[in-house]
């Protein structure tokens, strides 16, 4: 066959890319994974995402879909089973709210944890833990954010578990201590094959931050 019907342009450490991987795995979709070198992006990526030039990009039958949450919703609609978003409009709105909250808060605040030092780091640590606590509140005593079933918010947030070691080692705290329910949720999610196959080893992510990213941002 000339080309795969489903191609994912991605970068191994990207939590946004992991969302796409998990969604595709949940749906049992066969796809071609293509690793992008973010310092030397392929022509194909630049053509498929000319505006933002970012991964992940899902290319389905030659047509690109960009932005991780949009990819997850697209995958949910193009391959119906099992559903990631609930059926009821209000529950869907709640799921989208929390997925957008993760987008707005977790990555940026988390990034500051390994970029800042001293008082600024302490303030960021407090901010980050507040964010985690809000998410833990949304999870409550449910098995998953989606209730009994692994769903949209779970897919949106679980990739960051591969970055928790980065946040914990720089902020000097442990997620499972400050938010035990979230800690238990992470363990439950990791039992799913779609998650365990899509998330990289947290130690590799930590090494990537310490060796590559810090140098890129000029941080000691």
């Amino acid at each position: 066959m000339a080309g795969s019907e489903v191609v994912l342009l991605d970068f191994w450490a990207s939590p946004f890319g992991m969302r796409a991987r998990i969604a595709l795995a949940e749906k049992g979709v066969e796809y071609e994974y293509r690793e992008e070198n973010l310092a030397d992006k392929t022509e194909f990526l630049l053509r498929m995402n000319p505006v933002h030039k970012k991964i992940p990009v899902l290319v389905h039958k030659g047509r690109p879909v960009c932005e991780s949450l949009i990819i997850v919703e697209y995958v949910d609609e193009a391959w119906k089973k099992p559903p990631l978003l609930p059926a009821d409009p209000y529950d869907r709105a709640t799921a989208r709210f929390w997925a957008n909250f993760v987008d707005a808060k977790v990555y940026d605040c988390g990034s500051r944890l390994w970029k800042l030092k001293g008082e600024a780091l302490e303030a960021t640590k407090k901010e980050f833990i507040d964010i985690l606590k809000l998410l833990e509140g949304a999870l409550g005593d449910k098995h998953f954010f989606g209730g009994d079933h692994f769903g949209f918010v779970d897919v949106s947030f679980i990739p960051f578990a591969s970055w928790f070691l980065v946040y914990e080692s720089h902020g000097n705290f442990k997620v499972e201590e400050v938010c035990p329910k979230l800690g238990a949720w992470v363990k439950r999610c990791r039992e799913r094959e779609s998650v365990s196959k899509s998330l990289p080893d947290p130690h590799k992510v930590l090494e990537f931050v310490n060796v590559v990213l810090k140098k890129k941002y000029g941080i000691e």
Partner: protein
Amino acid sequence: MAKEVKLLGFWASAYVVRVQIALNFKGIEYEYVEEDLKKKSELLLQSNPVYRQVPVLVHGGKPIPESMVILEYIEEAWPEKPLLPQDPYQRAMAPTFKNKIYRSRSSPFQCLPSGVKYFTTKGEDQLKAKEELVENLRILEGALQGNKFFAGETAGMVDIVAGWLPFWIRRMEGLFGDKVVEEDNLPHLNAWFQDYLSLPFVREKLPPPDKVCAHLRGLLASLEPN
């Protein structure tokens, strides 16, 4: 009996106006509650404890905050007169435009921040901000692809999401005696500005231009250093 619909808003907020436009398009009856943003109501704080912002839609007592989430909710809870296409790929493309228009997180394409910069700067800085804004708008010009609306022949979700642009840009142009979007530089977008603003379901929900200009003047004055 249909469940009660309430919208908590602030008259000058573009995010609130776009929700009003969507409700109007769908013909949904609702009670509008004006919030004093300096003294937020209990209902608002309870309905949106995370962000404490308007707009919040309350449907049958259940709150939905965040304008984009509200718009998608409106589309799904009242599926007659759809604002989004049926095809999953077309649906995926619609929010991509949404992200191009307003999502500022590390996006090289930032209409909202560059619009704010244009509003808050003067002289050379404002000229540069205007250039940046026009460059961002050029991508939207291309996205229209010669269509009357972003959604095609008739207006849809993306038009409503992008709809703050024509209204606020025209107000700022009036305020500064300037022209940002015109026939000469962005002909398709210029035509879309006119076509969108003249749609009845849009026109009915726009705040009065004079009141908006006075509000903008007030904002500018408050930004002046003492």
